């Protein structure tokens, strides 16, 4: 039953290991730049138009260096992770409390009554 519990986690781990293995295998061959597909599309555009296409508008802000760019990307990931972790953690904690109350209602009941009483005086 325990294994059934984390089946999806094991599959996810397996897929990620395969992904890393593929990266290692491709890395071991020479001649890969690991450039972004988005910028490769720019090269295709210049091939197709014979180099005549000029972008008619340029970015309003350009990160001054690769370091700053990676800082901003990391910031984006950090903001996202923070929000996900906060809410999932909050819900997990709350679900744990509810389980505890179900298991041990007698012990928790007076405390709960006190909390509810407080809520009433506030309102």
């Amino acid at each position, binding site marked *: 039953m325990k294994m059934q519990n984390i089946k999806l986690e094991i599959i996810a781990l397996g897929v990620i290991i395969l992904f890393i293995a593929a990266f290692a295998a491709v890395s071991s061959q020479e001649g890969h730049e690991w450039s*972004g597909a988005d910028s490769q599309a720019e090269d295709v555009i210049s091939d197709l138009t014979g180099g005549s296409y000029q972008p008619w508008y340029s970015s309003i802000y350009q990160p001054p260096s690769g370091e700053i760019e990676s800082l901003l990307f990391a910031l984006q990931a950090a903001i996202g992770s923070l929000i996900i972790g906060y809410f999932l953690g909050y819900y997990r904690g709350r679900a744990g409390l509810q389980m505890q109350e179900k298991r041990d209602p007698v012990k928790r009941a007076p405390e709960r009554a006190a909390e509810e009483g407080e809520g009433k005086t506030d309102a």
Partner: protein
Amino acid sequence: MHIMEGFLPHPWWEIWFAVSLPVVALGVYKINRMIKERRETLPLLAVAGAFVFVLSSLKLPSVTGSCSHPTGTGMGAIIFGPWITSVLAVIVLVYQAVFLAHGGLTTLGANAFSMGIAGPAVGYLIYRAAAKSGLHIYLAVFLAATLADWATYLVTSIQLALAFPAASGGVLASFKAFAAVFAVTQVPLAIVEGVVTALMFKYIVQLRSDVLLRMKVLSSDAIKRLKEAAA
């Protein structure tokens, strides 16, 4: 899938704005209505948006020797549908266009269409069809998220091909050229995104199945089965 700033000529950048704008506007309206009627969905909406933030910031190496990034939109599409997800995608695209010079404001309409509308619509339809057919729910989520990601990049290839038809062979030939850059590179990334989304979905089922029930993502029977399997 980001078409870089200034890389869509007239009239294409205007066309994609015209297509995307009404969808995103309807998405904003739907978000407002949902928050008013079902305030308890708001944290989950934030999580779906945050998921797009995280996944689209990760530039991952692929088997082709180049890097690309997942989209993260499958999760939002499955829970909230493509309209609302388009708004989440636009928020991320604006952040990246303004601060990272990644994508662009003139190409925002086209990028919003591929990442925020076409991908999520594919994901949503696949999830609904797969769940209805009785496929295991996590497998349905995996398929939906994987194909939403992949469809996004195919649509980008189509958008670029329409704007830059090849001198010989026209739109089809240039579609092949752009898809050669995007489609294969994206396959392993899309699979990883699908698995991670399925895992995330599992945690949401465990923690907030009430919202999934109310949004009609899962039936109460399906929730019961998934919870029993996890117990």
